[in-house]
């Protein structure tokens, strides 16, 4: 066996390098698979409608683009109006079914892609700011691959584990002196070791880059690699001229260079200091301290050494500013690294690495081998050293629930009634709108949320109830700085027999405040969604959040969020513990089964407003002049409740309250439709 093979055996077998590499690859892949979240989840959730528009505008911005967006926006708003008109005419009996289908078909096609249009329009507003180097493209793949500059801690740890023993093992075995006295044990041996380390780092870096490229290619697709880098908003202000493919190559090359420099640093420190602990300590400190310690992110790119290159994405970023609310001024938060600065940092880093290489060779060279020339040369290596460191969201506790569920209606999201109490939003004092509950026996009204320390907590005016358990949602804020920052969203379960509270769901929203090292960051898109939730309901396994035109389901165990339904604005949504009911754009009632994820349109039920009770659906029949009807959930039979058209209605466990459309008089009737009295 050659020296190479022995060194490989030492590194990969005796020092367990192979085991560490396998572990690293497994952990990296597992973390990619489990933790990767698309930068813009909306695009994934509306993939088909987004790609419909993307296909039409993909590429550079040109003079017709603006017109295209204007005409598409018109088309959509016109289609909405026309569809509404056609529906009205059809349900009023002024239009036949065939004609209705013929008229509405093309409009539906237009509206089918509305969400996609919103997404592409967002991109358009970004691109038109600087159309020369911002192209229309699908960004999630490239964003995932390029748009982050987190230091890969596992990679740092792997390099430490692999490289520290390369020389430290020789010192530990006291072989260092013996090796210096054999022909191939001196400079050749050191070069052999360094080459092996470099080759390993090179292969691993390429492998990891390949795995990452493959992962994003497979998961999202990395299209349009020849488009300018600035097409990704992350690099929007960059002045570097580069395509996405080139950027990937640059970043990969930068990371490779950084890793090689780090490898050289580890080798150098281990040769100089000889001990494992001090080598690990110095190298860890040299990487981690500037990474976590520097306030301005871009400063680390001006520090010569491996760190800047190991997170080399930042070299391609442009200047970024943030508004300083105290001075009403824009404040620089990231300073673009100029080519000159980059060159200086690069050259200094190369020089340092060469210096370290030379020192290693000098220290690992037999005096007789170094010849006459070097006699008397002293390198103060020490001086050189001195000059140069799971939980995405909280688990949702499983909850034991009774088999039967109370029905939920979005329209009555501010109230709930169980056998003992009525829960509602009290708006009598507009300065202190609050959730209250009323004891049905005594009529006594009390605060529902019993927290005596309400500051820095905002309780939302929406509740969901199921038997004795009533749920509310709240946002907690942080006031560690001068400005308050929402840090957490929670759903609280209140057992109304004892008013004991329990957190059943919690989501961290703050992206940068109160961080120690910033290891657990929340996703901006996720945080934005949680800030726009208008109501929620839940079952044993999932929580359902009603956002803007969408219903999101969050798995209570894993915290994974998916969009299950797109719903029109201002429609009622109801939930009976398994089925979600809502009215679609064509005023049809749709039933969504949360167990099978299947949708079904309830035939002959055309309405704009409905309420779900425990046994039936009460609705204003669009096909019968907005008269109130009920549909039995059991056998789907229809029953007319009011003879006249109804303006609006609501109900509780006992009564239905409605406003007559013709005279605007308020009426009340029993829940079964009998005993109609004028209120």
């Amino acid at each position, binding site marked *: *066996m050659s020296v190479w093979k022995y060194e490989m055996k030492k590194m990969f077998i005796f020092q367990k390098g192979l085991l560490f590499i396998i572990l690293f690859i497994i952990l990296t892949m597992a973390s990619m698979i489990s933790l990767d979240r698309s930068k813009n989840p909306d695009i994934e959730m509306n993939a088909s409608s987004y790609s419909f528009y993307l296909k039409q505008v993909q590429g550079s911005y040109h003079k017709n683009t603006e017109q295209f967006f204007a005409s598409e926006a018109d088309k959509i708003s016109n289609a909405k109006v026309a569809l509404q008109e056609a529906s009205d005419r059809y349900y009023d009996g002024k239009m036949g079914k065939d004609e209705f289908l013929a008229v509405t078909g093309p409009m539906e096609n237009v509206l089918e892609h509305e969400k996609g249009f919103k997404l592409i329009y967002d991109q358009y507003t970004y691109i038109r700011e600087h159309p020369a180097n911002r192209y229309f493209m699908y960004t999630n793949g490239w964003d995932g691959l390029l748009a982050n500059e987190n230091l890969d801690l596992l990679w740092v740890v792997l390099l430490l584990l692999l490289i520290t023993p390369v020389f430290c093992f020789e010192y530990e075995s006291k072989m260092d002196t013996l090796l210096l006295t054999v022909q*191939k044990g001196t400079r050749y041996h050191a070069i052999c070791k360094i080459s092996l380390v470099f080759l390993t780092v090179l292969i691993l870096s390429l492998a990891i880059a390949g795995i990452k490229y493959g992962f994003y290619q497979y998961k999202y697709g990395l299209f349009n690699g020849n488009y300018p880098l600035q097409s990704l908003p992350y690099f929007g202000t960059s002045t570097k001229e580069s395509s996405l493919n080139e950027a990937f190559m640059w970043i990969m090359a930068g990371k490779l260079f950084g890793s090689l420099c780090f490898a050289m640093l580890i080798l150098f420190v281990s040769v100089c200091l000889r001990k494992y602990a001090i080598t690990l300590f110095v190298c860890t400190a040299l990487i981690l301290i500037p990474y976590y310690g520097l306030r301005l992110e871009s400063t680390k790119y001006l520090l010569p050494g491996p760190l800047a290159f190991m997170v080399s994405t930042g070299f391609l970023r442009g200047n970024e500013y943030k508004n300083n609310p105290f001075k009403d001024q824009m404040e620089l938060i990231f300073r673009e690294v100029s080519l000159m600065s980059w060159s200086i940092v690069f050259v200094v880093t190369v020089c340092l690495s060469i210096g370290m290489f030379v020192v290693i060779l000098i220290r690992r060279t037999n005096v*007789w*081998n170094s*010849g006459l020339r070097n006699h008397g040369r002293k390198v103060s290596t020490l001086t050189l050293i001195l000059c140069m460191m799971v939980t995405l969201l909280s688990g949702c506790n499983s909850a034991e629930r009774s088999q039967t569920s109370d029905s939920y209606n979005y329209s009555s999201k501010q109230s709930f009634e169980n056998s003992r109490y009525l829960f509602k939003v009290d708006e009598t004092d507009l300065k202190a709108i609050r959730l209250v509950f009323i004891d049905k026996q005594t009529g006594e009204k009390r605060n529902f949320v019993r927290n005596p320390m309400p500051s820095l907590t905002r309780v939302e005016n929406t509740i969901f109830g199921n038997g004795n358990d009533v749920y509310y949602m709240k946002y907690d804020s942080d006031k560690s700085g001068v400005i308050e920052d929402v840090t957490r969203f929670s759903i609280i379960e209140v057992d109304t027999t004892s008013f004991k509270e329990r957190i059943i769901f919690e989501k961290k929203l703050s992206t940068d405040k109160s961080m120690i090292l910033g290891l657990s960051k929340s996703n901006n898109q996720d945080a934005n969604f949680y800030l726009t939730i208008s109501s929620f309901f839940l079952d044993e396994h999932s929580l359902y959040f009603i956002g803007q035109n969408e219903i999101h389901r969050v798995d209570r165990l894993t915290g994974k969020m998916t969009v299950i339904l797109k719903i029109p604005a201002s429609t009622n949504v109801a939930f009976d513990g398994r089925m979600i009911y809502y009215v679609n754009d064509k005023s049809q009632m749709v039933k969504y089964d949360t167990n099978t994820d299947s949708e079904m349109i309830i035939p002959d039920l055309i309405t704009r407003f409905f309420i779900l009770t425990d046994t039936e659906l009460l609705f204003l029949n669009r096909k019968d002049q907005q008269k109130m009807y009920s549909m039995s959930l059991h056998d789907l039979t229809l029953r007319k409740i009011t003879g006249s058209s109804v303006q609006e209605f609501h109900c509780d466990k006992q009564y239905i309250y409605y406003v007559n459309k013709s005279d605007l008089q308020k009426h009340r009737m029993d829940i079964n439709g009998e005993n109609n009295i004028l209120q």
Partner: protein
Amino acid sequence: MKVTFKGISKQYKGKYALQDFSAELENGIYGLLGTNGAGKTTLINIFVGILRSDTGQILINDVDARTLGIEFLSHIGYLPQYPQFYKNFEVMEFLKYMCELKQIPKSQAEKRVQELLEIVNLSNARHKKIGALSGGMRQRVGIAQAMLNNPNILILDEPTAGLDPQERIRFRNLITKFSENRIVLLATHIVSDIEFIANQVILLKDGRLLKQDTPQALVEGLKGKVWTVTATEEALDEKLHRLKISNMMREQNDIHLRVIDDEQPDVDAVNVQANLEDVFLYYFGEGEQW
């Protein structure tokens, strides 16, 4: 083969570890004797090229070692002090590894390793991990690796540490056999290791060469200076304080002391034949009394 040391000096933090050391070695066994810290290991480290001397030069057959470069290393075999080697290597594997580093052709390496394993009596332990060997066995592995390349100059730093008496005798015989037409430099402070095999003894003290001569000449130089004195228990303390004692033996109520002194230390003192241990004590005995 001839090795010449010319005015070698080495300082650590302003203190001389080796000062103006000059000597000439020709084929034969050289015992390098000195107390701890005398500069033996420093001299060896400079000789094998681990350390750079501050001044002086080493000539090999009148050629400056520096001009020989890496080629010089092919002439030497070296056993460091307290070797540990790779604990997870097998003995055989380790020796083959050293063959590779010493650029011994593969065709010869296997044979040479087998041969040396036989010589150092480790044939049965060839597949044992080095970490599982006793201190003596590990020392024998070290001796074997030093001899792998059939060196012209064999440098052994404390080679008998950890060897049992039988192994020690084997070692001495082996070295004597090996030393034909070669230079063997054997650094130790165990006098018996070199007493019977060294052709010359180099005495080092505080980094300076004190004496270089044959053991016989050194012993001869002490003629009339080694005495035995018999003392009683009561007088022992006084004698211990006053005299340089090389050995002490209790026999019934008397205590026989072996004394090194230029003058007759006592009226009843009897002159006896000196040995190398007496030489060692004569030159290094001051200042380190227990």
